[in-house]
């Protein structure tokens, strides 16, 4: 599978009171054509900043280094008009709150067709036809009527479907779904996941799913990148990574998940809280919360390298590798 997106050594520094701090630190990832890739991690681990950097929409004053090449074009180097031509047309985003990402007083039709007409240069009637077809694809009943309706007339799940339709309207090649199901209840959630899954199979769409919900992850993503404090902790095949995690943090995330077979067994939270941007500990950023921490963990910042004993590609940023024996 050839790579559509190649992010290399992405570092995003945000201004804080104490000077610049890295919200994303030396992150590399690839997304293949038609592949679904997940980024997991707690709040504040840099998932959303990674996504925003692809759109050039980081907060004011942010400094970005590294590269993010989409088909050879470095997204981070684009400016002005060329950047706007990529947004929506090449990469699009579905955000976590379906009600907030649609303009409350513009009709669905307007919001679906506006950028479609701009990016694809289609006529008004052509755009309306496409928009109706798109709404049908995301299973909105009575698409023709829906074009004239306002977001407030739909339920949360339908709005999220519409938001996905809006993101797909200009036929982007990469869709970034930032917590696409957090605001939805479980049945609707499953429907959205199914929809994303179908869309990327039918349209050869590459998807980056950003979530802290490993259940969502296992349903969608083929490969998962686990981030902690802006750094890559572990990356690999979803099934492998979720059944035999090698990084203590991944293990912690899994232990914190409710499990249908576990019965009444208590969930195991990860002790402590994720570090704030200004106070990322030295050495391995996870060491204060890690049950397996050794003295060396406080010294050197581990880089993600191919984990020993794995047959497929599997990156791990944990030199002591305490979970190797278990796997």
């Amino acid at each position, binding site marked *: 599978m050839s790579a559509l997106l190649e992010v290399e050594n992405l570092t995003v520094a945000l201004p804080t009171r104490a000077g610049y701090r890295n919200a994303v630190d030396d992150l590399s990832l690839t997304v293949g054509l038609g592949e679904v890739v997940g980024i997991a991690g707690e709040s504040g681990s840099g998932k959303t900043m990674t996504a925003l950097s692809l*759109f050039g*929409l980081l907060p004011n004053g942010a400094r970005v280094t590294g590269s993010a090449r989409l088909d050879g074009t470095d997204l981070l180097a684009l400016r002005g*008009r060329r950047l*706007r*031509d*990529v*947004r*929506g*047309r090449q990469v*699009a*985003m579905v*955000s976590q709150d379906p009600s*907030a*990402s*649609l*303009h*409350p*007083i*513009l009709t669905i039709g307007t919001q679906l067709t*506006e*950028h479609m007409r*701009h*990016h694809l240069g289609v006529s008004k009637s052509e755009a309306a036809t496409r928009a109706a077809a798109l709404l049908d694809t995301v*299973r*909105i*009943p*009575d698409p023709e*009527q*829906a074009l*004239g*309706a*306002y977001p407030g*007339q*739909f*339920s949360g*799940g*339908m709005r999220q479907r519409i*938001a996905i339709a*809006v*993101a797909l*309207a*200009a036929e982007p090649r990469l869709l970034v779904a930032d917590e696409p199901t957090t605001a939805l209840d479980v*049945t*609707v959630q*499953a*429907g959205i*996941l*199914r*929809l994303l*899954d*179908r869309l990327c199979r039918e349209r050869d769409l590459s998807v980056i799913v950003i979530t802290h919900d*490993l*259940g*969502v992850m*296992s*349903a969608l993503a083929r490969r998962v990148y686990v981030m902690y404090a802006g750094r890559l902790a572990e990356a690999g095949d979803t099934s492998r990574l*979720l*059944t035999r995690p090698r990084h203590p943090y991944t293990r912690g995330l*899994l232990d914190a*998940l409710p499990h249908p077979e576990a019965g009444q067994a208590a969930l195991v939270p990860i002790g402590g809280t994720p570090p704030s941007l200004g106070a990322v500990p030295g050495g391995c950023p996870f060491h204060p919360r890690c049950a397996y921490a050794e003295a060396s963990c406080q010294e050197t910042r581990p880089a993600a390298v191919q984990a020993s004993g794995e047959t497929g590609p599997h990156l791990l940023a944990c030199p002591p590798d305490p979970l190797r024996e278990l796997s």
Partner: protein
Amino acid sequence: MTQLPLPPDLPLPSATPSLAGEALRRRRWLRVPAAWRQPLAAVGLAVVGAWVVIAVFAPLIGPSNPLAQSYGILAAPSSAHWFGTDELGRDVLSRVLSGARITLPLSVLLVVLAMLIGAVIGALAGFFGGWVDNVLMRLADLFFAFPGIILAMAVAAALGPQLRNAVIAVVAVSWPSYARLVRSLVLAARNAPYVTASRMLGASGWRVMLTEIRPNISGPVLVLGALDIGNAVLLLSGLSFLGLGAQPPTAEWGAMVAEGTLNFNDWWVGTFPGLAILTVVLAFNFIGDALRDVLDPRTARAVRLS
């Protein structure tokens, strides 16, 4: 961790939005909104409508030329001169009617001008933020630091007593409130997720401003403008009253009231133009209130509760 089972991909049960939308549209076009059916709103519309008709047809309705003088000076209201005559023997009724031709269009014009200038400045300040915001808003604060009528007087006096300069003066004192309002609305809308979403779809700054942010601000700005027309009428007549606006022999309500104060015993000279100002200002304020109920229900509710 096992694979999460997914249900078949069927449309989820949900209410059809189309019916509600249809009903909403029909009601919007076929019926007068409830706010306009309030008695005060209807009165406001009727009075302003009547004044507009008068302004358009003043030469036809008026019994005589508003500038024509006669020997019967300061004649009390009679069947010949319903509103009496002034110190130069001019028919007050004709002058009041033709005064509408000055006050109405100029007030609307200056509110529109103030709205445009204020909206552009406020939008720039809110959208760009930083030093642009600081410079523009401190400029607005500078205008707010003076009482409106005093500043308008100073500007009008500096430019020379003339109707055109009075309009410029009133515009100069009224744009800052629009700038402040628009800036705060733009600030609120700028960071809305749907604005970010539209940027992510490739919208440029201008497009974001015009298609995403503008609908959020046009309602409150129109409401402020409608409420402000009354103010504009008052300011403009006020300047003319002080001799800084319309010059003799122009029939302008403020100037006519000023004449009335010189002839205090002949009450009709100042009373009728004063009543004209009163009815117009009151009517525009009623309309502004109704407009607010229609366009800005949130503020309207807050006002009603307070």
